[in-house]
């Protein structure tokens, strides 16, 4: 098991007014993402707890690209990972950010 954080700067505040959302599930090859609107508008953060060690570099690349593409300002993402592949991680992060766009 491995735990770490990835911080980023966002160009703008994430749209919508929803305060929190959760998607996915911690299962083999999957992950759950809890998103909360708790940070200053230009900051974003992903906290990762993963069952599989040794992939931190890839996680950081995946998360930084997500920050660039989605600009999720003000959002904190918390992940419980069951060994998901990077494509699934990207998908869940984007799904969770989309859920926060609700008014």
């Amino acid at each position, binding site marked *: 098991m491995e735990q770490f954080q990835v911080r980023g700067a966002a160009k703008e505040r994430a749209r919508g007014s929803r305060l929190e959302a959760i998607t996915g599930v911690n299962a083999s090859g999957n992950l759950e993402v809890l998103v909360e609107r708790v940070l200053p508008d230009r900051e974003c953060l992903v906290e990762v707890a993963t069952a599989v060690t040794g992939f931190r570099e890839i996680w950081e690349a995946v998360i930084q690209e997500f920050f660039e593409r989605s600009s999720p300002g003000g959002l904190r993402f918390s992940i419980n990972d069951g060994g998901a592949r990077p*494509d699934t991680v990207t998908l869940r992060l984007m*799904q969770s950010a989309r859920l926060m766009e609700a008014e």
Partner: protein
Amino acid sequence: MNEIVDKVPRVDIPGDQVDFIVEAGKPFYVEPLFTRDPASVTENQILMGMTAIKGIYAEYGVKRLNHGIGFPTAAIELLLPTYGEQLGLKGKIATHWALNPHPTLIPAIESGWVEQIHCFGSEVGMDDYMIARSDVYFTGHDGTLRSNRLMCQTAGLYACDMFIGSTLQIDLAGNSSTVTPGRIAGFGGAPNMGSDAHGRRHPTAAWLKAGREASDGPKELSRGRKLVVQILETFGEKNKPNFVETLDSVAMAKELNFELAPIMIYGDDVTHIVTEEGIANLLLCRSAAEREQAIRGVAGFTDVGRKRDRKAVEALRQRGVIRRPEDLGIDALAANRQLLAARSIEDLVTWSGDLYRPPSKFRNW
């Protein structure tokens, strides 16, 4: 043989070709090789399927084709009656197949997408369904499939406009192999399906369009090309990258003193690579360097993908060599399992009018 009888119902192998007979005493176990459980199709495979349908099937108007046995192509089969229908593609793509009896194609057949299927061999549990759909399947007078292996190989080589299948490893030139450390798998008909037949002369729109994309010469003299598409996720099981600098099969060939490294499909035959990141159209590449960047450009977060030249990849995207799902107007978040025409083996049984009888290992009821 399961059983020695006085008279067989039909002849598949003439007796004068047989030297020895052993009666096994119990039924021969046949692995259902072509059955993919829709329950295991992932959202990313659905996204790849949508990307392929819109960016390749529709783009080239592919009607005659062969599918591999991976999950991404199973996803495509299950998307035809839903996503394909939404795009108005029925009758315009995927009508004639050289294909084993994939249970996942049942919804498309029942929705009227498929005109004809020639099968290489059979599949466990599909017999009754194929007998009932002899209008689609090429069956003999007793309703069973003929052994069409040779004919299908020929059709796959010459007649099909597209082969699309998965692989386990692909390198920077687009060579692919199913050999990985500890796993030496064969590749069935893929080398034949997945190669361009230079002897082909009969044109189709898909074949011509592919040929023209590859050629800078005079239009009237450019030959056609078979579409050879590799569809794969950037990472495989246990987060093993599917994109590599050098195929494991090269080292294996050296170790075992093979004269030839086991390559499933050579890079110069591959026309497109589809991943969750998008499509790389290798037909439009004009140099080895371009091909490499096009491949890196869809290789995701693998080492190969992260070592991309971002500017070069962006330039390729501007030229349409690389197309992301969003470039095709596909919302990645719309890739949802609700889009699958069948989400379980049970659904396939229902689609088949209870004629498909799945092997017990696929049941969850």
